């Protein structure tokens, strides 16, 4: 299977997984962790493969990845504290 198709399938799978996890009566902390982890993975896939930053020097690809990490971490802090 072609790489881009695998990335698209993963993104769709993670989206549906997060949605279905929300329908289950999961423990709140577990659900938040799952949701933020899947969002982070989806963001990284878009940055690395769709934006094609996996092919460029670290100093350029690091900016959106750091942005994503900081945003997800602060959201986690706001929801867990």
């Amino acid at each position: 299977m072609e790489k881009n198709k695998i990335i698209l399938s993963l993104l769709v799978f993670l989206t549906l997984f997060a949605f279905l996890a929300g329908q289950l009566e999961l423990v709140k902390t577990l659900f938040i962790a799952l949701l933020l982890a899947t969002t982070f993975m989806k963001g990284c896939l878009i940055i690395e493969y769709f934006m094609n930053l996996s092919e460029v020097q670290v100093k350029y690809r690091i900016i959106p990845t750091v942005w994503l990490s900081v945003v997800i971490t602060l959201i986690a802090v706001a929801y867990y504290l």
Partner: protein
Amino acid sequence: MEKEKSKYPPGDFGIWILIYIELFTFGLFFIGFAFSRRLDIETFHTSQLLLDQRIGVINTILLITSSYFVVQALKLVKQKDFKKQLQKAVRYLFFAMLLGVVFLILKLFELGDKFAQGIHLSTNQFFMFYFILIVFHFAHVLLGLVILYNLFCNTKKGLYSPKDHKGFESGASYWHMVDLLWVVLFALIYLLR
């Protein structure tokens, strides 16, 4: 042997400055939303129950599939026998735009439904963030569609080639940024409870 890394990100450097600024701006709104929720969890929770998560899921799939079509079109543009693949690249771009338009139509229905229920910007703090983020993102999708239409016309005219496709890469990068922002926005506004 490891493939040599490019010196710069794909597209014009200017588009990346714009992308970094947009990410920073949306990031502030996302964090603002998360911390404002802490002040009134009950209101945020009950307001969030009024949103239709299924539309959010459909919209997410529409945008990531649209992004995939743009990736595929760019891949064809970079190929040596691009002239033979031109029609295929044009088709990919057409479907990328179509999915973007469907995204906007669904968003309009969603916003219209909220207004019909008497919900607006000043209903409460949740909906203030909801309307600002959704409308701000909507405007970005709209601009992204204008850019995609431009790429569509230029590709159709055969203006890109394996050696000269920087303009295409710039437009594609902008569209992927719109996708990236939606992925975080969807999780934060629709799913996190």
